[in-house]
């Protein structure tokens, strides 16, 4: 695993993209082929089936390190990563070996057939022969969750360099449902495989946020506007008489949305649509709240199916008559999409997401302000001449979101983060005033700079009133402006509301704690926007 550890260190230690791509490309040339496949798999979030529970791992590590289990458990949140905590507490290895990455993965898979004693003996033996990084990586093979800042884009770039193949083609090959334990490097990267191709989604084209106003985009006539829906971005594939539904996160969701099966009855084979999965009712999209009930459910009870039926609100056509048409201009793809969907019966689970007609930017500004009324998050602006690109690209597609809702709240609890944010207080609970009481209503984790987090961490240490395990109650003193995308009633929360995407917009050091907002303010927002 030395070769894999060298790669990992090169990726982990460098802050520069070019150095990362170079290190990866070299690895994809000189590492053993099975190791390459596993590496792609793990860096894209796949991992071998867990062979040992983390509870057992903790017990064995504490025992081997000769420390009480509670001490291990206290150390873990400070390190912020279980695999790393284990690697650090263990004594140095007594010997060194160098087995391939795939050797260790196969050995771990073999553990599912043996009893706990044999598993323990194997794991302890592995720890005793793996130094530093390799030991950490071995633990990661068990616990999963490699975070090395390798995006799919970066990995495909490295693969393209290593194999001399086209980046877009490689991105397409890596999509979908392939399993690292049953696929070879050749089949994944090199071979023609019509069957695998049939199931594969196209890489999604992602828009950047528009920071500016659209006036700088040029002539309005070059642009197409649509609502930006607040659902799940999805791709519907109709090929070979079958249908598949993929999420943007490359999750196969066909079974979660059984209502889309009927699309095969209405749309021709060889069709691939890009759109938004939305809960639909009374001829219009419903709030994200309605869709939320469906997320996370692998099978759907009948009652829910009728309460929150899901449709694909289609806004792009990627494959038409079995042909990849992503290179065609959006206006042409859109025309074909309209032709496909125009005469569908009203109960078809695929509906065309309408274009918004506008003559000038001023008109669009006014329309955008009404987005919440139609359950949209804002507008999408797409250049009419744009091809359908892969990944996040600047220039042709922009999301022009509504400004978030905001409220000034008081920080009352703090908890330290994990991973890169271990040892820093980054997870806070916020409250609003209700008379003289502070009522907690949301948590938020993001939005501050590292410098601000360091500053607030040092303040939290000095102003802790009480500890509840890892959570610290702090003196109510600091006011933060909390931004969020939506608000809804929630009987599960003490405040009676739940926010969507809460984050810290600003640390209001200028604002005295008494001037934070109140529960009445929050309820008024619920009335207006809920």
């Amino acid at each position, binding site marked *: 695993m030395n070769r894999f550890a060298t790669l990992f260190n090169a990726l982990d230690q*460098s*802050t520069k993209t070019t150095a990362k791509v170079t290190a990866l490309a070299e690895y994809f040339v000189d590492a053993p082929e099975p190791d390459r496949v596993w590496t792609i798999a793990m860096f894209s979030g796949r991992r071998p089936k867990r062979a040992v529970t983390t509870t057992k791992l903790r017990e064995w590590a504490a025992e081997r390190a000769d420390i009480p289990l509670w001490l291990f458990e206290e*150390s873990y949140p*400070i*390190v912020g990563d279980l695999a790393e905590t284990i690697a*650090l507490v263990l004594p140095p290895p007594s010997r060194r070996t160098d087995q391939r990455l795939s050797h260790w993965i196969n050995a771990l898979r073999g553990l599912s057939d043996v009893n706990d004693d044999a598993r323990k003996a194997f794991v302890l033996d592995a720890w005793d022969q793996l130094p530093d990084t390799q030991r950490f990586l071995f633990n990661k093979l068990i616990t999963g969750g490699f975070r090395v800042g390798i995006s799919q884009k970066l990995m495909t770039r490295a693969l393209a360099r290593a194999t001399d193949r086209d980046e877009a083609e490689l991105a397409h090959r890596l999509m979908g449902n392939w399993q690292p334990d049953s696929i070879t490097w050749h089949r994944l990267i090199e071979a023609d495989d019509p069957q695998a191709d049939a199931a594969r989604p196209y890489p999604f084209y992602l828009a950047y946020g528009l920071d500016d106003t659209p006036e700088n985009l040029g002539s309005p006539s070059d642009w197409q506007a649509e609502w930006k829906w607040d659902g799940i971005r999805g791709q519907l594939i109709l090929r070979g008489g079958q249908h598949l539904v993929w999420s943007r996160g490359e999750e196969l969701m066909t079974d979660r949305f059984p209502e889309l099966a009927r699309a095969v009855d209405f749309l021709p084979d060889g069709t691939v649509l890009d759109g938004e999965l939305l809960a639909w009712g009374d001829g219009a999209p419903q709030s994200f709240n309605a869709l939320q009930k469906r997320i996370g459910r692998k099978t759907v009870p009948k009652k829910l199916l009728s309460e929150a039926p899901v449709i694909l609100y289609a806004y792009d056509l990627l494959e038409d008559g079995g042909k990849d048409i992503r290179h065609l201009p959006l206006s042409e793809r859109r025309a074909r999409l309209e032709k496909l969907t125009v005469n569908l019966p009203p109960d078809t689970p695929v509906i065309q997401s309408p274009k918004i007609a506008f003559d000038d930017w001023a008109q669009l500004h006014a329309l955008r302000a009404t987005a919440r009324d139609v359950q949209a998050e804002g507008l999408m602006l797409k250049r009419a001449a744009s091809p359908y690109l892969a990944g996040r690209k600047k220039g042709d597609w922009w999301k022009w979101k509504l400004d978030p809702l905001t409220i000034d709240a008081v920080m009352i609890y703090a908890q330290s983060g994990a*991973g890169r*944010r271990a040892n820093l207080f980054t997870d806070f609970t916020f409250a609003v005033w209700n008379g003289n009481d502070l009522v907690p209503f949301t948590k938020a984790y993001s939005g501050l700079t590292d410098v601000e987090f360091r500053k607030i961490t040092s303040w939290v240490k000095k102003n802790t009133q009480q500890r509840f395990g890892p959570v610290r109650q702090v003196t109510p003193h600091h006011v933060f402006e909390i931004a969020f995308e939506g608000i809804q009633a929630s009987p599960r929360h003490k405040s009676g509301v739940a926010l969507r995407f809460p984050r810290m917009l600003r640390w209001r050091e200028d604002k005295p704690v008494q001037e934070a907002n109140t529960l009445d303010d929050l309820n008024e927002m619920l009335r207006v926007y809920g």
Partner: protein
Amino acid sequence: MADPLLTFTEHGIYCARGDFHIDPWRPVDRALITHGHADHARWGMGHYLATDLAAPVMRHRLGDIPLETIRYGEVRDIGGVSVSFHPAGHVPGSAQIRVEHGGEVWVASGDYKVVDDGLSTAFEPVKCHHFITESTFGLPVFRWKPQAEVAADLNAWWAACADAGQTAVLGAYALGKAQRLLSMLDPAIGPILCHTAIENTNAILRGQGLRLPETVHATAEVDPKAHPRALLLAPPSATDSKWAAKFGSRQTGFASGWMALRGIRRRRSQDRGFVISDHADWNGLLWAIEQTGAENIYVTHGYTEIFTRYLNSAGWNAQVIPTQFGGEEEDAA
């Protein structure tokens, strides 16, 4: 029972019988100072007492202060209390302070490390009844590697930077850590350039007879082109400064015990982290405490609560003492 010889007050560690404080954080009449770092040697004391080895740096940092010096092992009587200073191994001149009266012995160890860094006078365990310890790295996840191993990594990194035509910029605290790194670097790889804050401390320590490799003072006027293959040693705050940018294409490294944790390494966004600390690691702390033979342990800064709980579970009589030490935290350790 008589009052304890040392107590913990809002000014710091206090000996009522001898009427002196150890590393006080507010102005007092008489202060015994373990070492020259800013969270231990503060401004405004009526009288200072420190080792002869710590004195020049303290004068450099605090100016013309009323400072008396003492050698390691020398015993002074202060108000009927026997006081002596013993090597703490933390930085050159750093001391543990032993205080004895009527057969009761206390040791305030300040900051310490138990491995010999080849530069500071090596840590010597002192038998006592009451031991005041730090716990900056008082968790079992902190286990230092031998210095020679880290030195090999450090020099390999520098050589690779030099071969690639890049300047290696290494961040380290100006007093102690910087000089320890200097002693670990291999001057055969290239020239070593030092930031003013570090070069000033180098000059003081060289004046005391410490052997450091040759360094170049990297002033604003120094021409980077005249020093190919250079390693630039700078305080952490300066590694990303305009001054450092002058040295063209470069990689940054940071040397600290905190670099043992990947999360902190990544947060600092350095190209490399080297795990090298002037504080004792987990095993070092436990070894030092064991060696004192003390039954009563006072834990002043670091992971105080966890470390204290462990000591109590392992049979010591330990307690947490809130202090204002450890102010330099990530940068210094």
